[in-house]
């Protein structure tokens, strides 16, 4: 039934890669997964069911990595009584990818209650993943009670401030940001002055052609501020990245896949490996969503990202655990 064009952007009136119908469709895919190719800041997206129609050009590149998010180890409520099991399923999914990813990004909420044994369990499970390097940023659930001290001791080696850092792979600059500290009453996620200054300095001398991947827990775009799904000072951060031809922003926190393109910046949120949350405004609160047990794995997932040198393109592929 999915004829050509049904699953891709067709109504790009402003030529900015943003199509409202396409965007909403992407949102509706939460749970089924999406394959996205970004070229020169323009997003093309296909439902996962169309993956077999796509050539190797879209699925291979100089660099591929996987994003996982929101493992919430320690959560044991009806929405998912076995978060260790679904994290293992996510690792199986990663290990089954046709091209082994070079590394993994974990975009936070590793643990549910910041307990040492929760972090230990995640570390143990991720040891069985083929990619050995995992780069973390904290979620608000990882910095409870101790202002992130434990998180920094475990995962923050060589990082600055509350745990922000950068590294280079295959000519791509990866930047891990922390926006879950010092949250103010009534507010959203916050990066803060010190981190923003560091970011400005970090990218100042980079060539404009350097592809940038920014990853942080809370979305760096305004997904749904009513539920706190956004970051107060993200505009300032993105301002420092304006000069770059290709910027990809990867986030977690909202437990569903969502994406949009704004100029040269592509925003993408990953599914959780633990439990789904409702679509913005579709429930009284963003609390865990209980789905029938047989459907759970179809609303959890991982994100596989490919970078093809010279194409200014990052292909973002979401896979469910089903």
């Amino acid at each position, binding site marked *: 039934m999915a004829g050509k064009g049904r699953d891709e952007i067709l109504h790009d009136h402003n030529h900015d890669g943003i199509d409202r119908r396409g965007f909403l469709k992407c949102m509706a895919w939460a749970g089924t997964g999406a394959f996205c190719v970004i070229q020169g800041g323009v997003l093309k997206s296909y439902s996962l069911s169309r993956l077999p129609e796509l050539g190797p050009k879209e699925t291979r590149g100089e660099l591929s990595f996987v994003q996982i998010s929101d493992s919430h180890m320690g959560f044991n409520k009806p*929405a998912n009584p076995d978060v260790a099991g679904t994290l293992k399923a996510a690792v199986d999914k990663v290990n089954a990818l046709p091209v082994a990813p070079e590394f993994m990004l974990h975009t936070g909420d590793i643990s549910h209650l910041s307990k040492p044994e929760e972090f230990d369990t995640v570390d143990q499970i991720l040891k069985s993943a083929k990619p050995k390097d995992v780069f973390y940023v904290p979620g608000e*659930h990882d910095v*409870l*009670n101790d202002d992130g001290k434990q998180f920094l001791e475990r995962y923050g080696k060589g990082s600055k401030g509350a745990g922000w850092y950068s590294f280079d792979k295959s000519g791509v600059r990866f930047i891990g940001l922390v926006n879950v500290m010092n949250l103010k*009453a*009534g*507010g*959203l996620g916050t990066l803060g002055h010190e981190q923003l200054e560091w970011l400005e300095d970090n990218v100042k001398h980079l060539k404009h052609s350097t592809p940038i991947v920014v990853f942080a827990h809370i979305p760096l775009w305004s997904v749904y501020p009513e539920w706190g799904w956004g970051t107060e000072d993200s505009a300032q951060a993105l301002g420092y990245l304006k000069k770059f031809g290709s910027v990809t922003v990867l986030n977690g926190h909202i437990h569903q896949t969502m994406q949009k393109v704004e100029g040269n910046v592509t925003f993408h949120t990953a599914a959780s490996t633990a439990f789904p949350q409702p679509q913005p405004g579709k429930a009284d609160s963003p*609390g865990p969503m209980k789905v029938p047990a047989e459907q759970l794995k179809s609303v959890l997932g991982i994100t596989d990202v490919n970078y093809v040198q010279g194409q200014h393109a990052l292909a973002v592929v979401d896979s469910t655990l089903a």
Partner: protein
Amino acid sequence: MRRSVSIASLAAALVFGVGALSAGPKSFVVSAQQKPETMEVKIDNFSFGPATLTVPVGTTVTWTNRDDIPHTVVSTDGVFKSKVLDTDEKFSFTFSKAGTFPYFCSIHPKMTGKVVVQ
């Protein structure tokens, strides 16, 4: 003589005590001399209920997290701060001074409430 006076005053005290008890729990709120009241705030669906609670000085307020997600109760002005509260966990604070005490959940800062102490 002295002895009968003290017995009489003791009897009076007993009568007063019984009278206070039989007046029911409402009398405790009215009298500042009585044992402090305890009030409840329930955390449901990412919100504090009631969002504004007005209590007399000396009241102990107990928050109970009834969500499937952990929350905290943190005074905006640094007056009180709970540890993280998992499902069904409680936090109590006794308000010994009059004033307005705004608070929020430091994990989900969109969740705000206040206690007005009179």
